[in-house]
């Protein structure tokens, strides 16, 4: 296996409530003030090899976007670090700043991520000019090249975002990220706000660009079908932790963690070959609050197989196949590494 290109080392992100003086006083006097931190991401470690696409899947509140932002270097972790080829993406103290242009991010909503009063050409040229990737004089030709690459006409540079449809705006957002010549792209639900027929066009663009530019990608989505289509490996998150990670094929055909299995079954799937057109099976219960994650395995309250130890000990990741690992007490490990917390 190649040396890791991106290393995510035990990152955690806690959001402390921003309490005013009044809140503090009310808290002391016994008022209902929330003083607990939201534990959005807890102790996540990952490695990506160059050119790989990692899908990050989970329900809202599971921490997938927070993890994506930390990998993109736009959100400092509370603990742990993210590095590309050994160089940290963020450095400095209070506040830590992004230190590299090698990683760029694409957001869900192309209506919110583009400045409505900036011409598309200016929006695309701003970053590359500031970082001296291109001179001001050469910028128009440079921008036109990237616009063509994402399937837009070069004259799009003269227009404003409101003159484009949602799918076209997402192409602009992709061009803007690519114009920084990144090695890594973090895409947070990039097709979630697009219509079905447009979704396919944008996914095809991602697949084509990935090969053409040899991009390493983190692809975040709640849509299991989309993630399977674009990803080499998939990580399933639940309440701030990765509960299963492995090759996309293995995750979808042989899911090991009870949550992954339940999640896959809960999605209505069009299976047109049999008499049953669509089958799905809901998971009981709701996602617990990240303010007070349950002790032990965070999924134990919704898990039909939960045992007493699931309520007490946080399960560690264990290998369950080739490059395939899951965090569940009930799994027979192919190479079980005994540790203090998991006997």
């Amino acid at each position: 296996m190649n040396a890791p290109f991106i290393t995510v080392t035990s990152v955690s992100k806690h959001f402390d409530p921003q309490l005013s003086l009044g809140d503090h006083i009310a808290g002391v006097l016994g008022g209902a003030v929330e003083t607990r931190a939201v534990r959005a991401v807890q102790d996540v470690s990952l490695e990506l090899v160059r050119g790989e696409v990692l899908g990050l899947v989970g329900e809202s509140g599971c921490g997938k976007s927070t993890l994506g932002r930390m990998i993109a270097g736009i959100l400092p972790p509370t603990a742990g670090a993210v590095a590309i080829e050994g160089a940290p993406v963020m450095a400095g103290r209070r506040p830590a700043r992004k230190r590299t242009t090698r990683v760029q991010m694409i957001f869900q909503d192309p209506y919110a991520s583009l400045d409505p009063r900036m011409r598309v050409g200016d929006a695309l040229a701003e970053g590359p000019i500031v970082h001296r990737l291109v001179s001001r004089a050469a910028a128009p030709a440079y921008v036109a090249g990237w616009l063509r690459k994402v399937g837009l006409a070069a004259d799009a540079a003269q227009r404003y975002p409101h003159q484009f449809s949602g799918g076209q705006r997402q192409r602009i957002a992709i061009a803007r990220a690519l114009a920084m010549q990144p090695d890594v792209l973090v895409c947070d639900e990039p097709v979630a706000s697009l219509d079905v027929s447009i979704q396919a066009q944008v996914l095809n663009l991602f697949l084509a660009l990935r090969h053409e530019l040899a991009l390493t990608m983190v692809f975040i989505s709640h849509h299991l079908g989309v993630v399977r289509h674009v990803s080499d490996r998939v990580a399933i998150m639940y309440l701030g932790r990765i509960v299963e990670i492995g090759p996309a094929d293995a995750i979808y055909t042989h899911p090991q963690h009870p949550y992954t299995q339940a999640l896959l079954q809960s999605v209505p799937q069009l299976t047109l070959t049999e008499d049953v057109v669509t089958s799905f099976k809901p998971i009981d219960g709701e996602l617990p609050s990240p303010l007070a994650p349950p002790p032990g395995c965070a999924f134990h309250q919704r898990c039909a197989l939960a045992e007493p130890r699931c309520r007490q000990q946080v399960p560690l990741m264990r290998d369950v196949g080739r490059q395939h690992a899951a965090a569940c007490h009930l799994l027979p490990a192919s190479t079980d590494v005994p540790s203090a917390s998991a006997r």
Partner: protein
Amino acid sequence: MSAPLLRVRDLATHFFTRAGVLKAVDGVSFDLSAGEILGLVGESGSGKSVTGYSLLGLIDPPGRIVAGSIRLHDQELIGLPPAALRDLRGRRLAMVFQDPMTTLNPVLTIAAQMQLALGAHERVSARAGRARAADVLTRVGIPDAARRLDAYPHQFSGGMRQRVAIAVALLNRPDVIVADEPTTALDVSIQAQILAEMKALVRDLGTALIWISHDLAVVSALASRILVMYAGRIVEQGPTATVLRAPRHPYTGGLLDSLPSRAAPGQTLQQIPGLPPTLAALPAGCAFHPRCARADVACQVAPETTLAGTRGWRCHHPLAEPAP
């Protein structure tokens, strides 16, 4: 076959704007039987939501229902005075919207809102109202309903809020519920819970349901029959399984082919070229023809609906019927 519960014929809802007349719904006809689940599928701007709003008379200026007929049992709904429509809404026809946070009043407790919905149609004592509200909330899967009645909407999660909105729609035992993308804003696991509950509710109560969604898989999980809309018209209709297995309209076929599950992982997806048309500048003839590989000169004239048994499609060059 018994007479349909709801009979919609040639419904046309247009919006009169400065940019011109937008024909959001243009000649939609369908029947709905008691207890049936009908799926209404389309992309944004296809007119699926406006069709739903038209059924309940919820079209505000500059929009107007300009033609057609909507009959519930034997009563014509188009042209009814507002007071009569108001009496029907909630009692005979109810609606569930996409975003439960804007449906529910944030400053009233669940009990107070449900009491209002009940009181709009009949005189109910506070005690009897609470009992009925608790009963309906239990039905939609809210645990400990009697105690949760005094909670405010913000104290519920998104999935629970949508359950409350569904409970409000069910309160007066309507004949028809129109649900407009009710699970789109929810997580997949919560969506599955609500789909399963809706299926059971419709079966138990005999309520007819119109489920509006852009997601073919979700609609196919619920609906026995689907209508596919494109640019204000129904382009294909029929039993869900047959339509999805062997679509006749190229648009339906294109939508199905563009699903990631239809291609091997990593392979290029079949895509429908181009963009959905804007209502202000609809192409002449069949609105789909600029994006359609099968289009020719005949498509300059808008096709009429071809009916064959339980199915129907609006296309001059339908996809081949599968070998039997």
